């Protein structure tokens, strides 16, 4: 598991706002964020839906701030219009941190299985560039995604499997 304090430090250095809908895969990250809320240099807004988080991030991006949006991959089902008619159309940079549900760990959670199967082709159909976060070299992976986000001025996706950001 990635050191959560180091990960938050990295987020603080590279982003101005965080918003999203939680996943248990982000439990440690979100608990630490909540604990440190007062001392953070970034703003954290809890959203009611994943597309609302994208909208909040859009407000940040329009004013030249960088936003990170977190969600379960079930949320990909909720953000199609927010991506295609807003973020991608207006060419706004932001990072989406998405938990990779529906893999072997989720065998008892059938609600995730279909999205788990179509996750990568769906991202490709949505023309989203994506990376899988790994404990080793995580800074390098994040940095690569950030560079792509900034140079293309487009949303990028970092997928997070179980155990990478939580026990």
């Amino acid at each position, binding site marked *: 598991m990635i050191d959560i304090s180091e990960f938050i430090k990295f987020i603080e250095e590279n982003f101005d706002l965080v918003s999203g809908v939680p996943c248990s895969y982000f439990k440690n990250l979100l608990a630490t964020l909540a604990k440190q809320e007062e001392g953070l240099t970034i703003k954290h807004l809890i959203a009611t839906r994943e597309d609302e988080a994208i909208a909040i991030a859009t*407000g940040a991006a329009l004013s030249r701030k960088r936003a990170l949006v977190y969600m379960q991959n079930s949320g990909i089902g909720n953000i199609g219009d927010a991506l295609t008619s807003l973020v991608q159309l207006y060419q706004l940079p932001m990072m989406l941190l998405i938990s990779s549900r529906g893999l072997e760990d989720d065998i008892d959670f059938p609600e995730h299985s279909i999205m788990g199967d179509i996750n990568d082709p769906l991202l490709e159909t949505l023309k989203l560039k994506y990376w899988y976060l790994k404990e080793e070299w995580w800074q390098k992976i994040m940095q690569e995604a950030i560079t792509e986000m900034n140079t293309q001025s487009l949303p990028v996706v970092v997928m997070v499997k179980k155990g990478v950001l939580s026990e």
Partner: protein
Amino acid sequence: MRGYEVIACLKDYLTEDDLLVSSNGNISREVYHLLTKPQVYLRGSMGLPVGVGLGLAVMNSDKRVTVITGDGNLLMGFGSLITTAFYRPKNLRILILDNTQYYTTGGQKTVSTAINYNKFFESLNIEYFKSLIPTEMNLKPVLSEFFDIGLLSILHLTIEEGKQDLANIPWHPTQISMEIQKKFLKE
């Protein structure tokens, strides 16, 4: 009053530090043609303008951000009103122009009339809210309060249907982004 008549009245209240987020269809078109440029003219993005306004407001406390949305668009992202009420940014205004229809797509009914807006806003504990039918007489004092109160405020206006024949917004969305981002570069 009609929506475009209300929008035309806004020009007396807008300063350099104002930023408007207009919802899709006719409202964005009217804001583009009737008020100073650039503003955040959303196309598509159904249910998202309140969230966009919230993001702009919390990240830019020196700007006064006003979201102008229709009832159909608002209903699609209704949760954003709750999120906004939770964070209560002082520099955010939400103007709802409610003609109880999806007017841009041909006047199909929305379910907006099911809401008692005054009771709903009251439940959110927002410092300033009003729900009324605007007239030439009552609109100006209400707009003065709405813009000047210095706290999160929501104004719901029940308007008559009707639009002006205005051309499509000529700017591509990437130009809209660029013009808005330029405003933030100068500071």
